[in-house]
């Protein structure tokens, strides 16, 4: 597999039937100036030509710093934002072309799970109403059937059926995240995009939610896209990981492979930056902290976007954009001077 075209290469070999397939997805947001005329003066290149695919039942992790476009990509997948160009195929059809009623009907198969359990639940609605709402919107079942489904869902996420009459403020952060999961599961989705599912939670609660996600996946054959800035969480839960930098996918590969044999200097820098809860490991780390900060996505650097912070950058990195190359089975990276020999 030595292709420079990322879209077919990102599909794992032997599985022609990618469940979710992103092909050259582009999303830009206009930057305007002037209070009345709102002239367009530029655009934020939030997602630039991103391609990857996800198998059914797989957990795909998406990592990167804030502002790298990972959340925008998540919103594009569930069609909360519409893409500017490219295609998103889901379960055999081109999801990104659907509109109106077709989109609404298909949408129940893809659900977005929000980050903040404090802000994503309406404080004036009872838990039962919150979980039932998707059923009401999609007009599924009678009131009685809906109530039964709500109780079943609460049980599924480990909450008492008595919770239906309570308000969100009566629950702790971890319990609220469980309510969030119950709502996401209401319509029996096939794919869940979880945007920072545990970053607002205490360390001791995180593991409960991560274990819950794993159990639900097994029981319902769910496919997950887990978006997080925390590589240790993503590595724990994901089968494969995609690393994003400034709107670009720079490396994608199986979780352990990416950790052991990172090819892209950005991935290596990200791994290096994460503190390990072990003084012996932490104190033996060298002094190669990644310097600088994420450049502006309005005027991204020419050529390789990472070159301004890259310790290996040379003249060619400013001139041409590195293509995606293979570094082993299912392992791709876009770098002129990778840390691993290309396969």
């Amino acid at each position, binding site marked *: 597999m030595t292709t420079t075209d990322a879209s077919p290469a990102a599909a794992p070999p032997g599985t022609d039937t990618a469940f979710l397939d992103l092909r050259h997805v582009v999303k830009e947001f206009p930057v305007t100036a002037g209070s009345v005329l709102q002239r367009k003066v530029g655009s934020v290149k939030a997602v630039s030509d991103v391609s990857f695919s996800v198998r059914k039942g797989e957990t795909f992790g998406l990592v990167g*710093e*804030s502002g790298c476009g990972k959340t925008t990509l998540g919103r594009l997948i569930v069609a909360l934002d519409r893409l500017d160009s490219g295609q998103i195929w889901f379960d055999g059809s081109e999801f990104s072309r659907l509109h109106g009623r077709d989109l609404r009907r298909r949408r129940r198969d893809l659900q977005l799970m929000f980050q903040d359990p404090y802000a994503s639940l309406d404080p004036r609605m009872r838990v039962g109403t919150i979980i039932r709402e998707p059923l009401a919107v999609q007009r599924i079942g009678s009131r009685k059937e809906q109530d039964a489904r709500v109780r079943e869902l609460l049980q599924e996420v480990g909450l008492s059926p008595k919770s239906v009459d309570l308000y969100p403020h009566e629950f*702790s952060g971890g319990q609220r995240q469980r309510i969030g999961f119950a709502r996401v599961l209401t319509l029996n989705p096939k794919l869940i995009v979880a945007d920072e599912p545990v970053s607002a939670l*205490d*360390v*001791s*609660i*995180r*593991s*409960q939610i*991560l*274990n819950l996600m*794993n159990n639900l996946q097994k029981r319902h054959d769910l496919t997950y896209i887990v978006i997080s*800035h*925390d*590589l*240790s*969480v993503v*590595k*724990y*839960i994901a089968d494969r990981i995609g690393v994003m930098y400034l709107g670009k996918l720079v490396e994608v590969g199986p979780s*352990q492979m990416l*950790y052991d044999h990172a090819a892209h200097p950005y991935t290596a*820098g*990200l*791994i*290096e*930056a*994460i*503190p*390990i*809860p*072990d*003084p*012996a*490991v*932490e*104190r033996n*780390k060298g002094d190669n*902290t*990644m*310097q600088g*900060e*994420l450049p502006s996505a309005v005027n991204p650097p020419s050529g390789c976007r990472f070159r301004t912070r890259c310790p290996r950058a040379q003249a060619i990195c400013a001139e041409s954009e590195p293509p995606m190359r293979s570094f082993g089975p299912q392992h791709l990276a876009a770098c002129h001077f990778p840390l691993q020999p290309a396969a």
Partner: protein
Amino acid sequence: MAAVLEIESLKTHIRQRHAVVQAVDGVSLSIGEGETLGLVGESGCGKTMTGMSIMKLLPPGGYIASGQVRLNGRDLVPLGEGEMRHVRGNEVAVIFQDPMTSLNPTMTVGNQISEGVRIHKGVSRAAARERALDVLKLVGMPRPAERINYYPHQLSGGLRQRVVIAMALACEPKLVIADEPTTALDVTIQAQILDLLTELKARLRMAVLLITHDLGVIAGRADRVMVMYAGKIVEVASTTELFAHRHHPYTEALLASIPRLDQIQTDALYSIPGLPPDLAHPPTWCRFQPRCRYATQVCRDAEPELGGTEPSHPYACFNPVGQVGASAPVGAAS
């Protein structure tokens, strides 16, 4: 090593309409010159309240019920508001979690830093501005002469946190309280800021109280660690000792519940069942007992004191890890 800060049996309470929350319940600690003491625990365990008690910046209804907070031998507890103003920002400085909200959006970076210098050191405007430029250079601000005239919104999160650190260091405090200094930042920026704090601490011989929930941050940066649970200190040890031989079941459970990047995790992560107790009505038995896998009858009858056989590694537990017969330790490293 001379102790810069000594806290003795500190109790901080918060009066609410129907109850008194005993947020900090008998905490004692000391930090020496050039030392970093890590304070870890879950949200609501009282770690921030401990830090804010030193500054006497408590929320409405909050007060120090008893105990002493000695800074270089002087007890801060009886001091009035006027005297505390000479302490805050001068002898003790705080680095808060969120650089978005801890800076004044209507003041330039330079004015914010020099304000404190002018008040505490009584120097001229020009001298204070000179000092502001010096500390901006010290914290590694790129193009400091230009950035000194910037407003906070013109800077990125990482640079804003550098400004917050510069403000904290401007008057050369003896003690810096860093309350989750990097939680709002990206991992790559977090590493830069932590490197900076460690370097400055060594260069300026400050004492640092590092408050965080992240055991990874503690592992690399603290000399000693105190683990706090429900308003009490449950275990104290040097960082290497704590990670190698943890005695308190809570410390063990905390470590077992976080996924480690450098390990292959095949089993489900350990998760601590239940919730911490309500500190308005603290129990008279071990506070961790309802969530503890080693709990026995004695844990339900009495509350353990901080003690044990090693003076350098005290813990508050009747059934410490590794000393109970049948059960294997949780999350034993593979």
